[in-house]
């Protein structure tokens, strides 16, 4: 290893291998003192994603604040107010990579008043890390985070039982918490749950196996993040193509070219597929799937492509192309779970703007069916109001028909956002039932 001008040589970096890496997006929710920042700091540090100048900057800040140890939380708290108050108030995105995968962390605060931030971070995640303090076991916050992971249909959940060092690395403590968690999550819709006993502070089972817990024979956290199977996280069954924009070059070379650009929301697409255009209901065939390098043989979610069709149909943004014999739901009366994100409560009878796939329309809120107490998951059917950070079930009627799937079946075609028409703010995140 030579070192010159801050640059060190590492052996055997395979640039071709890097191109075959997969992308895993995960979310961490947690509040002050539960060790979340330490855990992220350790993942970044042990995967060598913290640079020297960042390290120097936080060492200096820690010193200036009179702290004895280097405070790794300063790495993850980006905004001035957050550094001053020592709290995390927004979603921050972090990046690191190992030779197998590239990771995007959506780092969110864990308190109930930041539910909307957690929901935001969870909306794009493949995996959720839920931190449990081994000394306290399952608490209200654990319920909340697990409920959000299940509501947002994060495909994989890893429960990290942290601070094992403070309970003498005892297997009984770990087993008791696993049982407690399994009991309460039985009511929830979480598909893939794993448990790992760790100490983020000391690094036990984070990157390296812990010599302190020989009784645990499962993989470490990093190994899990690197190997969890994410190939089935997108829907590859129901062909859905929301049209984003129509491509018409009107050039000499591509005089008659008419393509429909969009990001595939589901299914496997091939040339020759029999498809139907919605809302018109006209049937045709896929003539080609193209990009700048020519024709693509097979396309699937979440690829951005351009389709051409065999017949000339009047198609515009907001329309959807689907496979014949596999139609989405359609209608104007929609039932959904919603997380309310505005200080102004939801208005029954109120009119809002709605964005669903690439379609924009308006809606009226017909009813609040119930509110969920997100600490114990009880349905509160007498509560007809949803305020900031509340989650509940509502029904809306839209001015135009929507073509949609159940959110559990497809996150792209089952999600929508509700926008206040006066302020233009996003006030609700909806998951269609």
């Amino acid at each position, binding site marked *: 290893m030579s070192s010159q001008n801050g640059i060190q040589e590492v052996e055997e970096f395979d640039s071709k291998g890097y191109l075959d890496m997969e992308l895993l997006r995960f979310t961490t929710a947690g509040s002050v003192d539960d060790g979340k920042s330490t855990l992220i700091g350790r993942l970044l540090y042990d995967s060598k994603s913290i640079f020297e100048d960042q390290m120097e900057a936080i060492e200096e800040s820690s010193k200036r604040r009179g702290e004895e140890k280097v405070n790794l939380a300063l790495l993850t708290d980006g905004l001035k107010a957050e550094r001053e108050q020592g709290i995390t108030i927004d979603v921050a995105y*972090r*990046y690191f990579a190992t030779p197998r995968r590239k990771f995007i962390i959506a780092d969110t605060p864990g308190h109930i008043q930041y539910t909307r931030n957690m929901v935001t971070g969870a909306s794009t995640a493949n995996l959720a890390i839920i931190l449990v303090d081994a000394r306290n076991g399952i608490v209200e916050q654990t319920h909340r985070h697990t409920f959000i992971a299940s509501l947002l249909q994060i495909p994989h959940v890893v429960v990290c039982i942290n601070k094992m060092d403070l309970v003498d690395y005892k297997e009984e403590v770990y087993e008791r918490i696993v049982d407690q968690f399994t009991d309460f999550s039985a009511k929830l819709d979480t598909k893939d749950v794993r448990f790992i006993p760790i100490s983020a502070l000391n690094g036990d089972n984070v990157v390296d196996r812990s010599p302190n817990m020989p009784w645990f024979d499962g993989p470490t956290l990093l190994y899990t993040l690197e190997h969890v199977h994410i*190939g089935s996280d997108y829907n590859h069954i129901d062909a859905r193509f929301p049209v984003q924009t129509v491509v018409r070059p009107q050039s000499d070379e591509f005089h008659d070219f008419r393509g429909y650009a969009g990001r595939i929301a589901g299914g496997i697409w091939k040339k020759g597929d029999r498809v139907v255009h919605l809302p018109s209901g006209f049937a045709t065939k896929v003539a080609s799937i193209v990009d*700048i390098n020519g024709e693509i043989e097979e396309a699937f979610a979440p690829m951005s492509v351009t389709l051409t069709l065999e017949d000339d149909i009047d198609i515009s943004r907001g329309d959807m192309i689907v496979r014949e014999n596999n139609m989405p739901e359609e209608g104007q009366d929609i039932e959904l779970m919603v997380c309310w994100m505005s200080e102004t409560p939801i208005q029954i009878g109120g009119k809002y703007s709605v*964005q669903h796939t690439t379609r924009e329309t308006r809606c009226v809120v017909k009813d609040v069916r119930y509110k969920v107490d997100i600490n114990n998951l009880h349905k509160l059917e007498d509560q007809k109001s949803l305020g900031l950070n509340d989650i509940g079930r509502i029904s809306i009627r839209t001015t135009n028909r929507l073509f949609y799937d159940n959110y559990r079946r497809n996150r792209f075609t089952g999600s929508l956002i509700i926008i206040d028409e006066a302020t233009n703010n996003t006030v609700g995140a909806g998951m269609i039932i």
Partner: protein
Amino acid sequence: MVSYNLSHIRELESESIFVMREVAAKFQKPALLFSGGKDSIIMVHLARKAFWPARIPFPLVHVDTGHNFPETIEYRDWLVGDTKAELIIGLVQDSIDRGTAIEEKGQNASRNALQTVTLLETLEKYKFDAAMGGARRDEEKARAKERFFSHRDEFGQWDPKNQRPELWNLFNARHQFGEHFRVFPISNWTEMDVWQYILLENIPIPSLYFAHQREVLERDGMLLAKTPYITVRETEKVYTDTVRFRTIGDATCTGAIESSASTLEDIIQEVASTRITERGGRADDKRSETSMEDRKKQGYF
């Protein structure tokens, strides 16, 4: 069974193309900010792919401090010819002449901060309602919390505490008259991803990124290129070294690094093993711990 799984680079590419198409569909008059740096170069490449075989449906806007490396301008003009894109240039010198921007004094004087004034003036002059930039969240801590669609008030300012939540791939672009958006299609890319993509797609880049011989001097722990725009102090020694640039910005504040990386593979190897962030070579970020956040609030991109 066939695996239907995209590599991470293709997934990032697909996300960025999706964002650019949303911008083109949702705004009356969008623009793409072009600096000549590698990030804006891949942005142009992505825009070309997003709308192919049609031309890029928005102009490239270059905010020109006048303190450029000649290689940057040469590259820019070649690219504009190659893509047949429209180019709009906002000159910082014009803002100075109008008196809306005041040139910094002193030996560390830089026009970097003045770019904000010219940028906002250019957006206003051409009535752009969305400006796409090549900023990435991994670059700097304030950027880690930036949205893809970043709402700006009528003064072009960013209010980090009052950002719209951004869920799934549903971007809310609604705005009042006079307000506009900054959009960052490559938010989720890292420096490494950008280099890998340049290699994968065989994208031409300015020669400044490769190792070359250049007259440099050391200042505040950085290697600065000797250009007509900086004043060499008596204590500073100008010497010739083999260097390259990791970022390309205003010539007065972009640091070079000693390097012999002369191919893309060499650069990737170097980036993989480097232990200093790329913005570590930017004097503009070193002014204070929160200098990026402060500049962004004022309308820096």
